[in-house]
C-alpha cells in the first residue's frame, strides 16, 4: 500500500494529465506515427487494457522509461489468442522502436495451430528478456473427498475411480488445459479437460462442486481459497512459489513438471544485437525494483529476468514439449 500512498501525494493535476494521456494513447491506438520517432518505444501487449498482464507491463513500462531515457508506451492489441499482436510486431520495423510481450500462447499456437498467424515465432521474433512468471494453482473443490489433499492423492483417486476426474481450464489452447493434458499423459491418468471462456467461470464450477479440480491463475482462485470453498493442492512451477512456500509443486510428484504463465519481451527478428542488449540490461535493472515486486506479490507473480538466450530457450523448449505431447496424445483441434 505504501506505493499508492506515495503516488497519491503527487497531486490531482498530474493524475488528470496522466489519465488524459493514457486515454488519448488508447483511443488513437498509438502505432504507425510513433514507430518513426526513435525517442519513443512501443511495447505491444497482446491483451486488452486493464487485464492482469497489461497491469504488470504498464508498471514495468513506467519504470523502463527513466532507465532507457526513452518514453515506453504500452499499446494494447488484443485478439486472436495473441496472434494479432504477434502479427503486427513481426511486420514492424526492426529498429528498436517496437517490442512485444510474449506469453505461453506463443508456444501453444505454434505447436497446435502452426498454420495460423504469420509463422514460427522462433524465426520471426528475437527474444529480448524474460520478465515474469506465475505458477498456476492446482485446485480441488468439494466434488473430491477430503482425503485428496495433494497431487499423489488426486492421482490415486483418479485411478480408483476411472474415467471420473474432470479438470477445468480457461480455454482449449491455453496452458492450464495443456497442463492437465500433460499431467494425464505423464501419469497415465484419465482426465477429461473442460474448457471455459474465462478462468473464473471454471473456478466457479470447481467451487460449486460440479467439476473436481483444475489448473487456474492464482488470482482467480484466491477468493474461493480464502473462503474455504477450494483447497490448493500444488503449484505448477518447477520450484515452489515464494508467496506460498508451504504449497508443494506438481514436480515433487511428477518429476520435471513445469507449466507456468510466463511473460517475456520480444522484438522483430532483425533487430540489431546492440539494441536488444541495451533493452535486456534495462529490463533486468527494472526487475530489481522492490516496489514492483511488492505490487504484484499477492498474485503470485515472480519477476525472473535473464538473458535473451534464456527466453529463447524457454520458448523453444515449450514449443518442443507441446509438439511432443500433440504427436503422442493427438488432441482434437478441428
Amino acid at each position: 500500500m505504501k506505493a499508492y500512498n506515495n503516488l497519491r501525494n503527487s497531486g490531482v493535476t498530474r493524475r488528470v494529465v496522466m489519465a488524459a494521456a493514457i486515454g488519448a494513447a488508447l483511443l488513437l491506438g498509438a502505432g504507425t506515427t510513433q514507430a518513426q520517432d526513435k525517442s519513443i518505444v512501443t511495447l505491444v501487449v497482446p491483451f486488452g487494457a486493464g487485464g492482469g498482464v497489461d497491469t504488470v507491463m504498464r508498471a514495468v513500462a513506467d519504470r523502463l522509461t527513466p532507465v532507457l531515457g526513452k518514453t515506453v508506451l504500452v499499446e494494447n492489441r488484443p485478439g486472436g489468442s495473441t496472434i494479432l499482436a504477434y502479427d503486427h510486431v513481426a511486420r514492424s520495423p526492426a529498429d528498436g522502436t517496437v517490442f512485444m510481450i510474449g506469453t505461453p500462447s506463443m508456444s501453444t499456437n505454434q505447436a497446435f495451430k502452426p498454420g495460423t498467424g504469420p509463422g514460427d515465432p522462433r524465426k520471426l521474433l528475437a527474444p529480448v528478456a524474460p520478465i515474469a512468471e506465475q505458477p498456476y494453482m492446482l485446485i480441488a473443490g468439494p466434488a473430491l473427498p477430503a482425503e485428496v489433499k495433494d497431487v499423489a492423492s488426486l492421482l490415486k483417486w483418479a485411478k480408483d475411480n476411472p474415467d471420473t476426474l474432470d479438470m477445468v481450464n480457461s480455454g482449449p489452447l491455453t496452458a492450464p488445459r495443456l497442463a492437465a493434458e500433460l499431467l494425464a499423459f505423464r501419469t497415465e491418468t484419465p482426465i477429461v479437460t473442460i474448457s471455459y471462456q474465462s478462468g473464473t467461470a471454471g473456478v466457479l464450477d470447481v467451487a460449486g462442486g460440479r467439476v473436481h479440480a483444475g489448473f487456474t491463475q492464482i488470482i482467480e482462485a484466491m477468493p474461493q481459497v480464502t473462503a474455504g470453498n477450494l483447497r490448493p493442492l500444488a503449484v505448477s512451477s518447477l520450484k515452489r512459489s515464494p508467496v506460498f512456500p508451504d504449497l508443494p509443486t506438481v514436480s515433487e510428484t511428477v518429476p520435471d513438471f513445469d507449466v507456468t504463465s510466463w511473460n517475456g519481451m520480444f522484438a522483430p527478428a532483425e533487430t540489431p544485437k546492440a539494441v536488444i542488449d541495451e533493452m535486456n540490461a534495462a529490463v533486468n535493472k527494472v526487475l530489481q525494483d522492490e516496489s514492483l515486486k511488492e505490487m504484484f506479490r499477492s498474485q503470485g507473480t515472480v519477476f525472473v529476468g535473464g538473458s535473451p538466450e534464456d527466453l529463447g530457450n524457454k520458448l523453444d523448449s515449450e514449443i518442443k514439449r507441446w509438439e511432443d505431447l500433440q504427436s503422442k496424445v493427438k488432441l482434437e483441434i478441428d
Partner: protein
Amino acid sequence: MDILSNIGLGLATALAPVNLTYCLLGVVLGTVVGMLPGLGALAAISMLLPITFHVEPTTALIMLAGIWYGTAYGGSIASILLNLPGSTSSAVACLDGYPMAQQGRAGVALLMTTVASFIGASMGIVLLMLFAPLIAQIGLGFGSTEYFALMLLGLVAATSVSDGSALKGLAMVTFGIAAGLVGMDVYTGADRYTFNVPEMADGVSLVGLAMGLFGVAEIIASVRQTTIAEIDRESWSLRKMIPTRDDWRRSWLPILRGSSIGSFIGTLPGTGPAIASFLAYAVEKRVAKDPSRFGKGAIEGVVSPEASNNAADQTAFIPTLSLGIPGSATMALILAALLLHGITPGPQLMTQEPELFWGLVMSFWVGNILLVILNAPMVGVWIRILLIPYRFLYPSILVFICIGVYTVSYNVFEVWLVIIFGVVGYLLRILNFPIAPVLLGFVLGPLMEEHFRRAMLISRGDLMTFVERPISGTVLLITALLLVSTAASALLRHRRQRLVPAPE
C-alpha cells in the same frame, strides 16, 4: 438493528465529499460513454483503471461502478433517439424505443426509461443490501446444466419476439446463431466461420452487430429517401413529452416484472445485463394482451428491458464481490481494481471490509439519484438532437460509430464488420425480415451450445443430467408447461376460428 448501522456507515462513506465527487464523475462519464455508440463501460473502465491506483480503493470502486451503471442510463438515449444501441444491454431499447421516437414520443420514452431504470436499480440495490451472501450461494449452485435449462426457457418464452412470417423469424434466429458461432470453438480450439482471418477468431461483437443492423442500416435507408419528412414542430410541444396516464398505467407492471427478472439474472455469474433485458422483453411480449403492438412503439417494450438491465447491473455486483467471480469482462476489470488495492473479494468481504462494501452499496443509491437528476431535465435537450438536419447528424453519427467500434478491440477490422452488417441489415429491411430475432439467436445460441456441450462432457453424455438436477429439472418442467399451454391456446383459437364462419 445491524443493517441500520451498516447503512449509516455506508452513507457516511458514500456522502464523504471525495467519494461524492468521484461518484458524480463516474455517473456523468458513464452516461456520456453509454450514449456514444459502441463506446461501452468496458472501454471506459479500462482507460480509467490506472487513475484509480492513486485513490482509496473505496473511492476508486465507487467511480468505476458509477461508470458501469451510468452507461445503462446513457445507452438507452441513443437507442431510442437514433436506433443506435449505445451499449450492448441497450440494444433491446431500439426495438420499441425508436418507433416511439418516430411517432414523436421520444420524450415520453426517455422519461419513462429514466423512471424504469431507477426503479430497476433500486430493486437490485435492495437485494444487494439484504441478501447478498445468500444470493451468492445460489449463484454458486448454477452450473452449465442449469444455465442451459434457463436459456432454453428464455428461448421458448421468446419465440413470440418476432411476428409476421414464422419462417422469416426462424431464418433470422438461425442467422443470429450463425453469427454468434463465429470464432474459436470453446472446447477444441478449432476456428469456425473465420475464413482464416485472425481477427475473426474472437468472434463478432454484439455491439458491432447491433450497431450495423440497426444504426448503420437506418442511415443507409435514409439516404434513399429523396425528401426527408420535415419534422412537425407541433409534435415537439412539452405536453407530448410528458407521459400520459395511459403510459403510466401500461408501464408500472412491466417495470416491476423487468426489475425482478433483471435482479435475478444479474446474480448469475454466467449471464449479464444484455440477457436480462432480452428476457424481460420476451416476457413482456408474451404476457401482453396484444403482442402485435410490440416493435411498433409499445412502451412496455421499452420500460421493462430498461428496468431489467439496470437491476442486473446492480445485482451483478453480488457474484463479483461476494464470490470473487465476475460475470462479465467489465466486472472482471472492477475485480482487478480491487485486487490491485490488495483487497480480495469473497464471502468474507462484507465482514472484513464493511466500509468498502456498504459505502459502495450506498453510493449506488446516491449515483442513481444523481442520474435521475441529471437525466430527467436533460430529456428536453436530448430530443433536440432529432431536430438536427440529417445531413449533419448522420455523418457525425457514423464518425462516432467508427470510433466506438474501434475501441472494442483497437482494430480497424471491427469497423469493416459494422459496415458489412449495416449493408446486410439494410437488405434484410427491404426484404421485410425482422431484426430482433437475429439478436436473440446471437445472444442465446452460442451460450446454449457452450453450456449444453459442457453439461454433456461432465455427465459423460447422459442427457438425464438435465432432469435429475433439481434446478434444471424444475426450469425444464416450466418450459414444458409453457410449450403445452402455448400449443393448447393456439389449438383452441384455431378451433374457434373454424366454428365461426369467416365474415365476408
